[in-house]
């Protein structure tokens, strides 16, 4: 396109062609203007979060509103970690995230293989049931599970949040199954001729080839558990077990006007996800694209 626009080419253009290119450039300008406008709007909340986190409280309540801090107060970050047991909550969030992710990756890979690559009677009926469970709202399960976990004495631990991950999740099963269906069946057949067992095919062929889907599930689960608010709210009942989600909200209910500290804590809660995103950016986008599956 750039080549077409050089001076030599332009001389040969007819009026219509010139108008056409002019319109394209105008369109492109317009597109960028709109995108930049919305892009800035989308980023402003972060700027505000970080900038407020650096403001002394006296500058927070100041008019007119300033986007950037007048004076920097880095101590907000230290104060925020002292006002709540921040490091303990951080560790709890990490702990929950790690085990929930391990559980999800193991169980869903395993289960999806059964739905995607093994042929057996009743498979499709069962799979429709898997999909149907997606429609059952969390709220229906919340109360009976609360009672179940309470009776098992689990409510003081992370078990109610972690253990269910080891038994599959409809959405992840669906996602991984769709992916595994696309793997060439010839590989299985060849392995079978070589005398590989079903387990061998799963472990040596399906798992290595499904890496992108496994990664996607891991990424989704990491985001989900790190963000999770309802689960910990309902099932974590001991203050020493709170995750950052719960801890931060409690902090807000107690110290509602300390916006500098609150924003510092919010920023520290967000940063691990941002780092994670930049490390795994490609898989992120691929993973989400994978969920908008066609046919």
């Amino acid at each position, binding site marked *: 396109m750039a080549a077409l626009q050089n001076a030599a080419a332009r001389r040969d253009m007819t009026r219509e062609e010139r108008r056409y290119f002019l319109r394209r450039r105008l369109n492109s300008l317009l597109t960028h203007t709109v995108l930049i406008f919305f892009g800035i709007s989308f980023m402003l909340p972060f700027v505000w979060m970080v900038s407020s986190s650096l403001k002394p409280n006296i500058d927070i*309540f100041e008019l007119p509103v300033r986007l950037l801090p007048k004076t920097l107060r880095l101590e907000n970050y230290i104060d925020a970690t002292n006002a709540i047991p921040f490091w303990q909550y951080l560790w709890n969030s990490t702990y929950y995230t790690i085990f929930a992710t391990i559980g999800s990756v193991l169980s869903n890979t395993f289960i999806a293989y059964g739905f995607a690559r093994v042929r057996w009677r009743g498979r499709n009926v069962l799979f429709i049931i898997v999909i149907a469970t997606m429609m059952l709202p969390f709220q229906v399960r919340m109360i009976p599970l609360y009672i179940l976990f309470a009776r098992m*004495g689990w409510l003081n631990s992370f078990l109610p949040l972690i253990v269910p991950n*080891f038994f599959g999740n409809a959405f992840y099963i669906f996602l991984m199954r769709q992916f595994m269906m696309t793997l060439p069946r010839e590989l299985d057949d060849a392995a079978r001729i070589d005398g590989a067992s079903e387990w061998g095919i799963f472990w040596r062929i399906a798992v290595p080839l499904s890496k992108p889907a496994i990664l996607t599930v891991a990424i989704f689960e990491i985001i989900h558990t790190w963000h999770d608010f309802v689960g910990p709210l309902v099932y974590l*009942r001991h*203050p020493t077990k709170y995750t950052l989600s719960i801890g931060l909200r409690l902090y807000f209910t107690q110290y509602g006007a300390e916006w500098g500290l609150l924003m510092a804590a919010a920023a520290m809660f967000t940063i691990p996800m941002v780092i994670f995103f930049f490390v795994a950016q490609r898989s992120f986008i691929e993973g989400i694209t994978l969920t908008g599956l066609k046919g």
Partner: protein
Amino acid sequence: MSEQEKVQGKQLSRRDMLKMLGGSAAGISLAKVAGLGGSAAALLRGMPAGAQSKVEIWTGFGQGRMADAMQGAIDNFAAENSEYAPEHIIVPWGEIHDRVIAATAAGSPPDAYRGWSWIVGDAAIGALTNLQPYVDAADVDLDDFWPATLGQMKYQGDVHAMSISTIVQFLYYNKDRMREIGLDPESPPTTIAELDEIGAALDEVDDDGTINRLGFAPTVPAKQTWDWGSAFGSQYWDEAEANIAVDEEAMIALLEWYKAYADRFGAENLQAYANTYGGNSFGRNTPQGIYYTGLVTMWVRGSWAYNDMGEYGPDVDFGVAPMPQRASADDATPGTSNGNMYFVPANCVNPDGGFAFANYMSSSPFVAINKALPDSVMPSRQSLATLPEVDQKEGGWTILARDEILPNTQPQPSFGGAGFFGGALNEGIDNVMFNDADPATVLADAVSRSRREVERLRG
């Protein structure tokens, strides 16, 4: 997470982990790794006789002078009672009740926790340990408590809570602001009409409705519904019927009063003003709070806010007075009284330790002087509330609270369902203020729903 569990976690190599977690046995293995089940915790706590037994205590005292005072009280308890090893866990006030209830349901509540009189209603759902046998065994002199507070400690005749202090409400007012507009700072309003009038003279509102400064508004920082209802002359409970009953005339007048403020300022402008400075926590713990900077001239809060003024607004010249009351109401009171209580949840591991701590907190002169007074609350026992240290307290707030306000107050509701009723009334006030709902309808609805709730809780 205990130290021991952390070490266990580290020792597992990644391969071990994967091996262990394979297949559906994973959940069970994980249960072992996490090892945090209630029964395990209970085992750890169930120490052999003779050793110290752990007493787990939850409070919301997490910051500043009150956290220090709490720690001091706990240390002193431990020093005086060598058989108990107290462990203090901080849960923000706004959540402490919900968390304890849930932990009680889960079978792992604390052994004692700090709450308020309305929580006594939890006895209706079996969430509290009946302390009457403990009180009898320890020979506690119940008549020493303020009668109103003792009433709140009891559920169906049995003691279910030990009160450490009794809160009454103050009208706080900024004398500097009153001087600025030429009012006598030594004669604060005593009736609702005066309060409205003086407040209106102090408001500073932009043409577009933005509130810059507020004389007074009954929703900033909180509605204080029980207190204003009492100041308007209503009761809340009918003993004979054993259910909710209000003085309709007084309550409708109350709702109309809130509505008048909504009409004057715009309900959302008031809400925005309160939100700006931290909503219900109203910037209590920051020098930028609205009361320390003169942004609000008059407000009603418990006596516990008194020492905040000294800590965060040392330069503000402020005064305290009893709550204004409706002149036309015979039964009007200067707000309600409310006990700060220690509760021992049902099914806790160490109820003996829990009661020992609760009883210590309510009876120790050390606590009264070093904990209640720094919190600016009146000890609940008359013998402690008449100590010379109380009489000598600067500012005269102790005398005002003890001799002028407390004897005239109505106890805040503490029946099963009181929390629900309070919520329903607040919802009704919102509905009147924001949606122009009819006060009589709103009141009838809140009362009928809450009566049903009282019956539901009764089972």
